[in-house]
């Protein structure tokens, strides 16, 4: 018998694989996409090294079997169901919340105003490469950030020679957006997928945000914003400037490239830890009378949030 499957660390994986069409299933224990190409021809099977990918984006036109989802969960790979242009519909696969100590730590930092401010300041410091002005509230910091972001968009658009009239998109109807905005939307969707996989793998809750609140992925948006303007935004503008025939594919290639160049998958989990450490409180310890696991956890190769 083969030993049981275990997740491997996020930093050693490919960032994203997009599946466009086909039935996703398990054949001989491998994660495969079955493309029938009509009824009279036998199907083409494409293997996806599921355990070696951080996140798999399932586009409209895919079906997934129970066994395939179970295999993805077992190897700690996030499955994200996305709509046209990478707009998220639903997501699952590797469920979060595997580490109570980390969730409590994150929640405590988010609930205490002074701790939250420290974390937010650290996020801005990492993002802009300098400490934000002292004695500002989160609200004031957000105002400063908003102005800075608008300027960054303009500067990047200018640099790549793209006509830019502001970040505008309509979630109801993506096709009405202009090319730079569409490129930006699909590029940020890719970044969010990878970031969500990392947040879950690190053992934290995607919904407990510090700057963003009220969304299922608030913390993912917080973390992704740190990298957005160094990675996907320039990549999207560059693609938009070249006016490609298939912008979506071009954006994905560009994102893959920039994720590798900036070593995003290696940085993202240590950066999350660094951000939360800015609160300068210890991780909560289990209460004295709490009962540990009767069966000890098996040794794990993956990240803290991965279920062994």
């Amino acid at each position: 018998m083969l030993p049981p499957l275990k997740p491997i660390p996020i930093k050693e994986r490919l960032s994203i694989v997009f599946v466009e069409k086909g039935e996703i299933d398990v054949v001989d224990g491998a994660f495969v996409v079955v493309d029938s190409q009509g009824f009279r021809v036998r199907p083409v099977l494409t293997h996806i090294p599921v355990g070696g990918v951080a996140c798999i984006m399932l586009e409209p036109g895919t079906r997934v079997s129970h066994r395939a989802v179970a295999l993805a969960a077992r190897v700690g790979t996030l499955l994200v169901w996305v709509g046209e242009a990478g707009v998220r519909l639903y997501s699952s696969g590797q469920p979060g919340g595997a580490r109570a100590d980390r969730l409590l730590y994150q929640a405590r930092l988010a609930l205490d105003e002074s701790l939250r401010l420290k974390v937010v300041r650290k996020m801005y410091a990492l993002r802009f490469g300098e400490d934000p002005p002292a004695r500002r509230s989160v609200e004031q910091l957000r105002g400063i950030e908003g102005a800075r972001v608008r300027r960054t968009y303009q500067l990047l658009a200018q640099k790549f020679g793209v006509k830019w009239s502001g970040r505008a998109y309509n979630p109801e109807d993506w096709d009405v957006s202009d090319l730079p905005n569409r490129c930006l939307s699909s590029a940020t969707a890719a970044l969010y997928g990878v970031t969500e996989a990392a947040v879950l793998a690190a053992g934290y809750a995607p919904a407990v945000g510090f700057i963003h609140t009220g969304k299922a992925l608030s913390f993912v948006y917080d973390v992704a914003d740190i990298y957005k303007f160094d990675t996907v935004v320039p990549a999207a503008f560059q693609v938009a400037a070249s006016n490609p025939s298939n912008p979506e594919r071009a954006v994905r290639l560009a994102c893959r490239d920039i994720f590798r160049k900036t070593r995003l998958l290696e940085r993202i989990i240590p950066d999350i830890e660094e951000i939360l450490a800015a609160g300068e409180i210890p991780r909560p310890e289990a209460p004295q009378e709490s009962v540990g696991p009767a069966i000890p956890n098996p040794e794990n190769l993956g990240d803290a949030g991965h279920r062994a």
Partner: protein
Amino acid sequence: MLVIVLENAPPRLRGRLAVWLLEVRAGVYVGTYSRRVREHIWNQVEAGIENGNAVMMWYANNEAGFEFQTLGPNRRLPADWDGVRLVSFHPNADESDV
């Protein structure tokens, strides 16, 4: 790192590859060479493969960390999925199915 796998290759090509690479299993050759030498070796494979098929993979500075190329007919065909190179397993064309 460079790995070449041959299937159904004539013995003269197998002997030729063994000049530069180590044959660790039947038809499986390993070594470490520069890009120029790799291309030189692949030229030999192209010249001598006849009806067989071959695949060569090597270390590359891309997201996967490696690159590969193939030669000759095989059910496994490389597929490019938005920049990720995967392998598709094509069924043998069976007359009754076509």
